[in-house]
């Protein structure tokens, strides 16, 4: 048989073996069988010695072609088998990725803290910086300095807790205004978040709750800026389409004073039990700082004016988050806290 025929025969013998091979080990055996040092090709080429020198280059080329053909088949098969084996491996070692995650879940900040943060951020954009002060106060800072002398009827609305030492639990965050104005010269632009206390026996009240007080003092501050600040604040808090209404009211430490309502967010101002069928919700109290308060802290009321406002944090949180009872905010039930 000619060498050429032997080569052809080798290729036609090897091809189906390669095609039918099922493992990499088997494939390697096939390679060695045909192309290895002691394989079929080597055997065939031993016959070269018997051939004419002139024919050898042609036979050599034929042998290379046969080798290349087999190598290609072997490589393709190898790559095919490797892919299949990797795929099998992956299936075998796969985990169930649909199992739930493991690890410490994120905790929760209290809704009051979240609300204070949100309000502070909104007012921070208008340049209001956060100040804080003591919760156990002297009568002077809680009342006297805020134009609420001892016999003033306004004290009735501040059901006050007294300490044995004669101090009071602050009934509002306004005393911090006085501390700051005593310490610093105008311009002043602060907000004061904090806990306040009222001895109110009503079940819908809590003896302690949170307020945010705002104070802006400068030359030529007017009621128009008060309106602008609160309008911006309430729209940022409740949405740009929110209607805001200013109603005249009375506070001893401001003059003129007002209360600010927003259109009821629960009934879209149609009237419901929460807004007492008025369509409006009272949200905060405000006013131009009373000249007597400036006198108490040594400011000249003819040189500076200012405005102050106070907002109940619980009320905002309850409205925004749909919390039906203030008690939920002090119970600290995890089934409640984990909702926010």
């Amino acid at each position, binding site marked *: 048989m000619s060498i050429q025929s032997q080569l052809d025969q080798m290729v036609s013998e090897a091809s189906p073996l390669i095609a039918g091979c099922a493992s990499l080990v088997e494939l390697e055996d096939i390679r060695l069988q045909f192309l290895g040092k002691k394989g079929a090709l080597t055997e065939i080429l031993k016959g070269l010695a018997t051939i004419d020198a002139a024919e050898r280059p042609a036979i050599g080329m034929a042998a290379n072609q046969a080798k290349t053909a087999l190598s290609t088949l072997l490589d393709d098969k190898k790559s095919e088998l490797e892919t299949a084996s990797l795929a099998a491996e992956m299936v075998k070692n796969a985990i169930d990725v649909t199992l739930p995650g493991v690890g410490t*879940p994120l905790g929760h900040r209290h809704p*009051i803290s979240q609300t204070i943060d949100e309000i502070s951020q909104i007012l921070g954009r208008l340049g209001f910086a956060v100040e804080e002060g003591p919760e*156990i106060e002297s009568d002077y800072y809680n009342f006297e300095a805020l134009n609420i002398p001892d016999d003033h009827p306004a004290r009735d609305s501040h059901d006050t*807790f007294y300490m*044995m*030492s004669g101090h009071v639990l602050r009934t509002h965050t306004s005393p911090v205004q006085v501390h700051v104005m005593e310490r610093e010269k105008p311009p002043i632009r602060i907000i004061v978040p904090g806990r306040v206390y009222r001895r109110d026996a009503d079940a819908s009240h809590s003896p302690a709750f949170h307020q945010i007080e705002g104070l802006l003092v400068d030359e030529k501050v007017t009621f*128009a800026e008060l*309106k602008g600040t609160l309008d911006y604040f309430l729209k940022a808090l409740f949405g740009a389409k929110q209607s805001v209404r*200013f109603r005249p009211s*009375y506070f001893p430490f401001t003059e003129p004073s007002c209360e600010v309502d927003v259109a009821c967010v629960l009934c879209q101002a149609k009237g419901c039990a929460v807004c007492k069928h008025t369509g409006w919700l009272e949200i905060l109290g405000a006013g131009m700082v009373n000249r007597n308060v400036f006198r108490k802290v040594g400011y000249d009321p003819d040189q500076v004016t200012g405005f102050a406002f106070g907002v109940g944090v619980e009320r905002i949180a309850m409205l925004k988050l749909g919390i039906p009872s203030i008690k939920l905010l002090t119970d600290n039930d995890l089934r409640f806290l984990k909702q926010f």
Partner: protein
Amino acid sequence: MKVSFNWLKELVNVPVGPAELAERLSTSGTEVESVQPVGQDITGVVTARIESIERHPDADRLVVTQIFDGTDTHQVVTGATNVFVGAIVPLSKVGASLAGGFKIKESKLRGVPSNGMLCSETEVGVAAESNGIWILPPDTPLGLNFSEYAQLSDTILEIGILPNRGDCQSMIGVAREVAAIFKLPLKMPDIKFSDSNSKSEWTIRCEEPEFCPKYTGRGMTNVKVGPSPIWMQRRLQSGGVRPINNMVDISNYVMLECGQPMHIFDASFFEAKTVGIRFATEGEKMVTLDGVERRLPAGTGVITDGTKAVAIAGVMGGETSGVSDKTTAVLIEAAYFHPSKIRSAMRQTTLRSESSVRFEKGIDFKAIEWASDRAAGLVEALGGGQVTGARVAFVNEQHSAAQAKKIAFSAAQINGLLGSEFSEAQIADALKLLGFSVENGHAIVPTWRLLDIQEWPDLAEEVARIVGLDQIVTRLPLPNGLMPEPSPVRKLQTQLSKRLVTAGFCEIRSLPMISPEDAARCGQTPGAETTMQNAFAPEESIMAASHLPRLLNTLAYNLNRQQHDIRLFETGQVFGAQSGEIQETVELAGLIEGRETPSDYTEGLQSPQVYRYLTLKSTLESVLAPYKLTFSAGNSPQLHPIQQQQLTIGSAVIGVMGQLNPKLAGQYDVPATSLYFAINLNVLATVSVETPKFAPFSKFPSTRRDIAILAPKSLPFSDILTVIHQHKSPAVTDVFLFDFYESEKLGADKRSLAVGLVYQDLEKSLTDDDVNKPQEKLVAKLTELLPVTIR
């Protein structure tokens, strides 16, 4: 204050309905708390007379009445006890409709037919409660449609009185506001009586002209005490006042009408026809009209008959000096008592009356005479009385309440405060509508607003509320330059709270007041500065010195509600005192119970107690980064005596962490394995953080050597670490624990610890000798200095 819409309409021509009126009042500064229709849709009720009353054959508590409505007689069974033969009462006949849509049907009560019902004020919807059947005046005609006759249908506006607006505590006061809002005239009631200018027999002796700058008295005789006419009863009811008899009703009526508290005495009680005003003396007593004998606080204003007290001035009358059925002569008192004195009398006696709340906010000094005359007119008209002489009065014209008040202002000032552009005329018009006189840059304050209006900003408010706050522009304040940073404590509070949330903690915010028991358990000895005088209950009487009691209570609360794997923290002020000075500290504290990872369903990661303690340590290290937290022995009595550590940074002790003291855990019924930590943020804020500086790292390879140490369990790992750090080669760049185990094979009191050391040099590769020699020395030192063996 309750305002009857019907009554209001007689004083001013209200051009709108109750709902719109409420809106207009609210937006001009008079808060309307509610608008309540009353007595509406009442039909089938007529006036009728009780002809006979007989006992019910089968029920002790019921009677059978025959009642005549002018045409027919009806049999009605009733349980009322205040009925009598001849009484004229509202009868709801069969088919009638009462308050709340209640319908009257034929019925039988214990077998006796009853055709209708006798009505109280409640059933016809004009009062929230009543004392039995409504007995009408004896001259009431029979068979009248009662709903029309008594004007049952009305709307009551509940008005919130602002502390500065005592002048609105009357119908005329509210009518004035309404008149100003709608630019309408006020229709004052007419006063008519047969005047007597003859000299009065009465004498007023006021010893306290500062407390009582005006006292007027007027005597009247031939008075017949009896029920008031139905129109007056209805008005009193609408104001929330129960009708009693014509004399008492007149004094209440005049007060509701014009805001001037009145008192009508039985004149016979004043033997000397002298009225005295003085302060109560030490230990003086008096029986007030509620029948209670009271010791009068010294300095309380009293009215006397010349010697003994007959009333607490402006607060409450005496039991015996009041009008009774036998009264035939009366003395009408109308006076001014000093607001703050009345306020302290109210506080000291804890008595509050419709009169005192009006005196307390200040009444119109100049309107007292009008009120006195108004009452005299009504006594003559309704009680047949006759004026016995001119009104007598004591007046202190020097008193501040008697002085006219003139306030200088300019349009520029008002516009400068409001940010408005109101014209001078606009401002003057608004003020005039409210009763001010305006002239030459001054406003003269109406006599009923003297206490309230102090300075020109008050005028600005009056103008703004009448013109409308919506007429003022809305404008943002100009930017303010640099905004200061929050305080270091607040920054820490916010930052650490957020990190704890990331570590799975839930923030609580609890009431800062705790019980004395909580305080004692948690090691607080409250002083006067932190103990409340007037707490609601002892359970909420101490201002807490730490968050621990609240965290314990909250943990127990949640465990009781089937919550588990709980991680809580709270931050905020805690309270203490040092030598009388109150100290408020901002504390951040946490309490954890259960597993580290509640969703951990894989068995291998269940957290044993040691693991939980150590993970809390590393959580605190992360939360407090970049501070370099270290731990030293702790001594908090609330924590486990051994399982606790102090948190320190440098030399500052910033807090504590540890397992709960089992006794404390038992007292709160929470697991003894719960872990607690507390950080004092005020101290932490004083610790400075150094900015990190770059340190070069070696480009030469490192070499690791391990030491396996068999140590007694009683030897703290920190002792081993200390020896290693003291005796290690300078080439050691890291020391770490990489294996830890205890087993029976090792022995019950032994444990194995494997420590790895990393050797590395900045300048060169280390040889075996460079590493092995110091390592051998170190191992030798360990066995020399500590009771350990190397494995």
